């Protein structure tokens, strides 16, 4: 029974395929999170410059986030067919809520005396943003990126139903053949990828915020 539930020889015989799907899964995660951040960042700057924008932007991102994943994926089909974009556009939209909110909160969280000191030292507005505010906001922004990344890794598998999928293809393979091994391999790798990405982003934060390390 145990042997039929998990078949190591299948894993050994399909390492190439498993690796290809894992790589695909990584691409389908990195691209949306990257695009999401590229969109959320200017939206966050605009929200700080014009505070009245913030609430409606957050509201729209919140409604998008409430739309079930499978629904949003298939709603894309008339626009983009069964291409990669059908997966990437919704995945990107789902990251906006947390990335916008955390970027705004992170930048807003910079103490006003720090801001005033920078101004007094003659920093221009742009230089102040990139040299002072952004570095100080890194922990909050990275916290948002971690949530967005882990969520995206879990959603990517669903796109197997619309011809994409990464590790989701292993789920479907196992499901359609009533053969649990690929499904289990896919699940384990998906969770492992989420944990690795989460730790990786924590590492990025560590490198970017040397002042936060405990001395000794």
């Amino acid at each position: 029974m145990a042997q039929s539930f998990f078949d190591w020889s299948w894993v050994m015989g399909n390492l190439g395929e498993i690796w290809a799907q894992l790589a695909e899964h990584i691409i389908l995660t990195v691209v949306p999170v990257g695009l999401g951040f590229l969109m959320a960042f200017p939206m966050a700057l605009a929200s700080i410059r014009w505070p009245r924008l913030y609430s409606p932007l957050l509201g729209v991102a919140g409604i998008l986030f409430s739309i079930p994943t499978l629904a949003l994926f298939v709603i894309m089909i008339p626009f983009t067919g069964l291409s990669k974009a059908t997966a990437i556009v919704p995945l990107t939209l789902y990251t906006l809520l947390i990335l916008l909110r955390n970027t705004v909160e992170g930048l807003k969280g910079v103490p006003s005396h720090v801001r005033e000191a920078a101004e007094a030292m003659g920093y221009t507005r742009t230089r102040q943003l990139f040299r002072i505010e952004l570095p100080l906001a890194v922990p909050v922004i990275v916290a948002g990126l971690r949530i967005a990344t882990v969520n995206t890794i879990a959603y990517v598998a669903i796109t197997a139903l619309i011809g994409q999928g990464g590790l989701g293809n292993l789920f479907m393979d196992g499901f359609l053949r009533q053969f649990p091994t690929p499904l289990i391999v896919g699940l384990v790798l998906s969770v492992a990828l989420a944990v690795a990405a989460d730790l990786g982003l924590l590492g990025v934060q560590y490198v970017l915020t040397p002042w936060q390390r405990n001395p000794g």
Partner: protein
Amino acid sequence: MIEVITDLIAWFADPVNWQGSSGIPARVLEHIWYSVLATVISVVIAQPVGILIGHTGRGGILAINLSNAARAVPTFGVILLTFLVAGIGLVPVLVALVVLAVPSMITNTYAGFRAVDRDVRDSAEGMGMTAWQVIWRVEIPVAMPLIMAGIRIAAVQIVATATFAAVVSLGGLGRYIIDGLAQQDLTQVLAGAILVAALSLLTEFGLSRLQKAVVSNGLQAESEEASMEAKLEGSTG
């Protein structure tokens, strides 16, 4: 594009799609039935655990990390795997939905209890309240914004995730999406997606009204804040 929209209107206008066991009313009811069942079971399991951890303060680290860990698990895969193990039926889908909803409920209830001011708790004890009275008359009312935010976010996630019941041969609104994809019938796929999205947004709206009703008037602002936090920390189904 215009053709897609006129096809959709025609689909929704077609009386055939409103009748019988695969009609819209029947599918909506199935979807609601799965969702309500999963939500109630999750509340029954998660709330006592959350209350116990929150009241005693023991196991807090577990409670906080539970919802983080749950976010990493792909719902879709869990449903397919429980189906392979348990076979066709409502049970595997319910198990998967409950397993995914319970962690965020526990985390939020725990956070709600922890946010109760120490002084408030101490004065309740000082007034001679028993542990049960402290829980029921002080901690739960004060923690209600977060408790309800947790239930709301989990319920919306359950409604979204119940769509996958159709992948494992059950009913619900996912049926239109899955059958439409199999038959290459885009209109049916899109109609299903619209219905699921609408039900999901309605659930969110309805539960936000319920939350307003059960949370004390003095805590409405906290309640809004808590819901946003819970949503940000949460995941779409």
